[in-house]
């Protein structure tokens, strides 16, 4: 295992009296895909801008490939900002070439790479089109390609899926996997937990500028108490029936026919055990659903339902955290 591409140690950023990021410490190990999760306004973009040296932390430190971020080690980084923007009068190919050259590629290499990426993503026919003539989705693709063009060792993607339709989201997921396969380390922020569940080796969760979780997906799920949902005919007291069998049941919001209950699973027992116990008690079961661990539930368990509700606010409505 090589040097961690990014190490943040106690990084704090304040804007006037407002603390955007507080005492944030985490690292991105080489070769992994790390999800940087949290609702809008949690401090993700500010943290990423500190990681890139665009902003300096008021306290703490940032290490990029073992040194403070500067133009030299930033050449190994590809960055996709949350607020997308390109030169509208430049062509797709010129845009990718330009940003690749700024990252140190030679002119001919950058042009060849731009053509290759455009062909690969189905934009070959639009290489000479101005950005202003492309659809929003196409322009976003061009920006993402500009981030990848110089084959960076470390990709930092700030809300890369926002604004993309489902088909383009899938294309981006494929691109991220391909970059990871190539050997790139990837850190991406998102407030949509499903992307992280599909892609990440590890996650860092942020709420109100503070880290609330840092670890693998399995470790995240392990923070949740496991359980199962069971529906029984109206009026049947499932809690009383299961208590002698060693299970605790609580009423849950009804989602279908009958009364809904959530049954907590003691360590070492599975969903099938509670089902068997209920059948033994003669409970009139009308529905049964083992609980599937979701990152959103992890986040809710860590920060509460009110804070987690912010996850559902679309990015377009974000308060620009970095401003």
């Amino acid at each position: 295992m090589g040097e961690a591409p990014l190490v943040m140690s106690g990084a704090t950023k304040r804007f006037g009296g407002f603390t955007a990021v507080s005492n944030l410490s985490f690292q991105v190990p080489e070769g992994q895909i790390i999800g940087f999760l949290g609702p809008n306004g949690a401090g993700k973009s500010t943290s990423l801008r500190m990681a890139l040296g665009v902003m300096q932390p008021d306290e703490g430190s940032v290490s990029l490939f073992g040194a403070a971020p500067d133009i030299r080690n930033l050449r190994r980084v590809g960055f996709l900002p949350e607020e997308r923007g390109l030169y509208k009068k430049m062509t797709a190919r010129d845009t990718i070439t330009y940003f690749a050259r700024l990252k140190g590629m030679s002119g001919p290499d950058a042009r060849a790479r731009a053509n290759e990426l455009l062909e690969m993503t189905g934009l070959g026919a639009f290489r000479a089109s101005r950005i202003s003539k492309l659809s929003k989705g196409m322009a976003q693709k061009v920006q993402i390609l500009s981030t990848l063009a110089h084959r960076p060792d470390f990709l930092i993607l700030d809300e890369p899926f926002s604004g993309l339709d489902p088909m383009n989201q899938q294309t981006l997921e494929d691109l991220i996997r391909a970059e990871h396969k190539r050997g790139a380390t990837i850190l991406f922020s998102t407030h949509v937990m499903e992307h992280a569940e599909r892609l990440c080796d590890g996650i860092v969760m942020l709420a109100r500028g503070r880290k609330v979780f840092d670890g693998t997906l399995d470790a995240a799920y392990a923070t949740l108490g496991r359980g199962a949902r069971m529906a029984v005919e109206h009026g049947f007291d499932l809690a009383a029936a299961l208590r002698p069998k060693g299970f605790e049941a609580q009423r849950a919001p009804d989602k279908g026919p009958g009364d809904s209950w959530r049954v907590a699973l003691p360590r070492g027992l599975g969903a099938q055990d509670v089902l068997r116990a209920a059948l033994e008690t003669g409970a009139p079961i009308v529905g049964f659903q083992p609980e599937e661990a979701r990152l959103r539930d992890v986040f809710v368990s860590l920060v509460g339902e009110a804070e987690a509700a912010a996850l559902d606010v679309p990015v377009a409505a974000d308060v620009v955290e970095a401003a």
Partner: protein
Amino acid sequence: MRNVYLIFRRDFLGYVKAWGFWLSLAAVPLFIIIGAGFGYFAASSSPVRYYAVVEPGNVISEAIDAEFRRSEARALEEFKSLSGPSEGIQADAASAAQAARKFVAVPAPAATIDELTPYLAGEKKVAGPGGEKPLFAALILSPDGKTLEYWSSDVNVSGLRFSAETAMRDLSRRDALVAAGLSSDFLKTADEASVKVAEFRPRETAEQGAEVTTADRAPAIVAVALAYFLWLMVFSIIQYLLMGTIEERSNKIFDTLLTSVKLPELLAGKLLAVFAVTSTMMLSWGLFAGAGAAFGASQSPALMEMIQPFIAAATDPALIIPALISFMLGYVLYGAIFMALGSLCDTIQEAQTLLSPMMILLMLPMFAIFIAFNDPGSPVIEYASWVPLFTPFLLILRMPSDPPLWEILAQMALMAVTTALIVWGATKVYRAGAVHGAGIGDLMGMIKGAAGMKPKGG
């Protein structure tokens, strides 16, 4: 340097690929060509007009004719002073002046205004050197000889009336003097006996001659031209820098750029690009003017002789070195200001609110340029040249007056220090605007807390 070049190249090509650039580039030569064409067309297409004088003899006719000849002679003298001693050119000019006379006297077709009215109204025509035409004007002397009535259907063309007024004033003066006992010959001699005022200036060596020539005036004229050129350049960059920076701010592109290049590299590349754009424009106009001058010189050696002192003045190190330094520092100084202001604006409308005070600031050196045109050694120029924001323009203007060397060096040093400070401040403002999203409203706060400036929170 590579990054500076890449930023420069992208911005430069971005500007020159735009239609606006080519329109601006073509505008000045087109304006000159069309303006000159209009002037020539207006002069050559102006019709020859007939006039008639109704008088007992032909005294007034002759006086008006003499006044026309005097005007032509004055124009010829002015041309001679510009074109030099070439006899061929002067002869051509003399015949051209004669041929260009637009008012021609014809015999009066009638003696009263009632009878003349159909001729003035175009219902009847009179014969003349240009064929038959209506009468443009009739000048009728009253029976007592005290009033000359000027009748014409066209009251807007006043050249003939002015010449008639001058001629009548001379006639009255002459009549009064003759009545006082002076002879006509004596009056003629007295008119011709005016003393010519020759202009000289003291020089260090006698070989140079003392008479003032174009070469003596050329440095001041060139200095004014250079100062105006710099002013025009600064004026031209405003829109480029403001628009370019606003576009990038609204495109949210700064974060991407700043993870690839250093902020000073970004600013340097952008300033160089706009400098190259305006230089390309100015150079193109200069080439156009040079080609015009070369063509003129090939047609007239005298014109070449006329241009020579200006070329010598423009290549004099004593003028051109301070001018170049002023150019560079002035450009960077104003360029940094405009770029920083642009980084605070989201829209053109916002930028407009900043443009007004900047325009007022820029008009002040323009007034100084006007003053320097008539009096390069004016104390106003001298004092104002110590204000660093004006020094780039006014130091150039002062150079032909040979200011003390210490003053030149001190003003350059002051200008350099101010430029460095402004670039430093502009970089801070630019970072606040581009990276932290600060707006115009935050400007005062930034200025107040310049030393330990904190960006806008959020």
